């Protein structure tokens, strides 16, 4: 039992804070947001040069090999600064899955480039009405030398910048995890503007040929890979939401301490200060469940329930803290010239991504029923 963050991880965190802070001044964010996609290549390169893109990539593949918990901390800092970098789909969803399920050739081909910032591999886990990548509607048909993939994925982040997109499709004899080249014949990327204001992409595959070298896993191993990708993505999103919510809460604490009405700071009204105190409690709860999930994934231990609970908390806390922050700011909170809106919209995006609170609560309830029905005397 030890809640200590090691000195090594603390220095990683400080380094991330410093770089992310430098690149997320409001003017820089506005310039990035004027582009087609919300991605800052210069910041990505700076993170690569500091070694931060490789925190969860083996040293043999050009990374630091610090593990998934360290990656969670990086995601938290990205959240704290609403930085325009796709750390969750690229580093947790794609690189993390490649590290654990790719063969030697695939790892050597992609991981050093991801760590160095020279190549991007993203992942696409969601489809219309389906956020479970172990049961995709997309199909795969075995052909000579690989598979032919058809179907759609939605809200893919960093799709136009990526050399490959990691995704799953259903073959007759089981699941297939493939690395799809977005420039391959039969692939269409259609822009989708999402609530955070970012442009993401619908990925439509029509008879796309994927060679054997780009097949990551099939059958049981593919199920494990997609389970891992989903759990890692959810946990990384929780970590990012933790950073977002912690920052929103602190912005609100500061704003209400300075904003005066009726001749006094509005923070001196209990009705206001208690709403912010509730955010503090919520953020601490989210921190605890996120750290637990990240720590279990880091150690390669079963984390299914811990991850589901973390994402349930993530959705609830993101919603409550975001609403409280907006409310306590009054009109200032919705002004695009003030900093808060980016946090609120990104929090909503995360809440709705990769399994929301209602769906995961239902799933957790089913798991509880299975557990106790199995144990009940006949």
């Amino acid at each position: 039992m030890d809640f200590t963050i090691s000195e090594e991880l603390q220095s990683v965190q400080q380094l991330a804070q410093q770089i992310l802070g430098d690149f997320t001044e409001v003017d820089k964010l506005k310039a990035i947001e004027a582009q087609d996609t919300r991605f800052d290549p210069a910041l990505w390169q700076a993170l690569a040069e500091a070694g931060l893109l490789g925190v969860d990539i083996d040293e043999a593949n050009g990374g630091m090999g610090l593990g998934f918990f360290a990656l969670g901390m990086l995601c938290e800092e990205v959240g704290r600064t609403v930085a325009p970098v796709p750390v969750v789909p690229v580093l947790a969803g794609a690189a993390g899955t490649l590290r654990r399920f790719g063969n030697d050739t695939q790892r050597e081909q992609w991981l050093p480039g991801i760590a160095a910032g020279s190549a991007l591999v993203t992942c696409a886990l969601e489809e219309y009405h389906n956020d479970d990548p172990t049961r995709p509607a997309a199909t795969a048909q075995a052909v000579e030398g690989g598979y032919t993939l058809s179907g759609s994925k939605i809200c893919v982040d960093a799709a136009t910048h990526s050399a490959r997109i990691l995704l799953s499709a259903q073959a007759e004899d089981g699941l297939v995890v493939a690395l799809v080249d977005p420039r391959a014949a039969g692939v269409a990327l259609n822009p989708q503007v999402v609530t955070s204001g970012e442009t993401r992409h619908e990925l439509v595959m029509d008879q796309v040929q994927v060679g054997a070298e780009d097949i990551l896993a099939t059958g049981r191993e593919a199920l494990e890979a997609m389970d891992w990708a989903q759990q890692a993505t959810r946990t990384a999103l929780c970590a990012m939401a933790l950073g977002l919510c912690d920052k929103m809460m602190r912005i609100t604490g500061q704003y209400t301490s300075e904003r005066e009405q009726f001749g006094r700071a509005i923070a001196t009204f209990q009705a206001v200060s208690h709403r912010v105190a509730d955010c503090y409690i919520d953020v601490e709860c989210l921190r605890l469940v996120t750290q637990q999930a990240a720590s279990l994934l880091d150690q390669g231990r079963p984390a299914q329930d811990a991850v589901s609970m973390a994402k349930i908390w993530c959705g609830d806390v993101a919603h409550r803290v975001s609403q409280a922050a907006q409310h306590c700011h009054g009109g200032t909170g919705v002004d695009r010239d003030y900093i808060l809106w980016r946090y609120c919209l990104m929090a909503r995006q995360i809440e709705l991504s990769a399994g929301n609170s209602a769906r995961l609560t239902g799933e957790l309830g089913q798991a509880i029923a299975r557990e106790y029905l199995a144990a009940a005397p006949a």
Partner: protein
Amino acid sequence: MNIELTPEQKALQQEVREYMKTVMTPELLQEMKDDELKEGGGPEFRKQYARMGADGWIGLSWSKELGGKEMSHLEQYIFTDEVVRSGFAYPFLTTEAVTPVIAANANDEVREEVVGGVKQGKVVIAIGYSEPSAGTDLASLKTKAVQDGDHWIINGQKMWTSLANYADYVWLAARTDPDESKKHKGLTMFLVPTDYEGFSVTPVHTLGVRTNATYYNDIRLPDKYRVGEVNAGWKLITGQLNIERLSLFTHGQVDSLYVDTCQWAAQTDAPGGGKLIEQPWVQHNLARVKSGLEVVKLICWKQAWAMDQGPLDMADASTAKVYSSEFFVELYRLLLEVLGGAGAIAAHSPGAALKGRIEFRWRVGSILTFGGGTNEIQRDIIAMAGLWMPRTR
């Protein structure tokens, strides 16, 4: 970062869990059916409390000098969690909150008498802080102690003096500076033996358990029963609040209610066929309880771990109190909904689901959000200490 109990800590947890099964004898369970004795005080309670003392279970966290084992706060929490889970009315405030303060501040004779007695499981101490007009604003208390040679003359009334109907002493906060405007700077701590002339108790029946009003009528108390310096009582009161809270909101006591409800729902037929636990609304409630309980577990572990690292962060301590107290109440509600109409049947009435345990806990639970420091004050502390916001007025 590794948020799990070590094998040694798990072994301790198991050892305490097994031991407490031997403490909860059929005789004790029978005795506790009497509402007057639910919170301890009956002969079988006395017998088992003394046995825990003889078996070396009392005062695990105390210094070796006092006969303790100097266990860490985390180990102490594991012990507390299991004892509360068992349902034994172990007097935590006596053993964990008050006795270490008495050991550090009382004179030798009283230390031997009281600390030695607690160690053997023979002494229980009630807390005499609150008064009819001094609750959250404790420093406005009016009970007076006036020095008369080597004695003190004590007069006043205390409220919510739980356990005073069978306790051996009251740990009493009294005003020793007649100037009431001095508030917390004019308070001194005393131990009042409950067999002294001038002490009396009347019962107060609450929604759950019996508590008491206690009266102090010209009690002549020898100076040896004063603990700490005159007018320096406040820090003896406030220094123990976090330890007190860590024994109030433990995981095991509510986790066991969750587990029992899940088992019950998996064995109980649903009206349309199948088992109750197959109903989506039941699963929804159970999942919400499980997600909330997970944080109770983590927040308790983190508090106990943090206390071993140094002084507890004020905002974190208040966060744990507010979250746990409000979640406990929510948990009772969610589990009672699963039990349905039978959930409202009280213990010992025919048809009571799970022996009426949750029904009872829900009734007692209404004190949680204000007891142990009301949640409004805790939120004030969080805003100030955690977020550097200005004091509210």
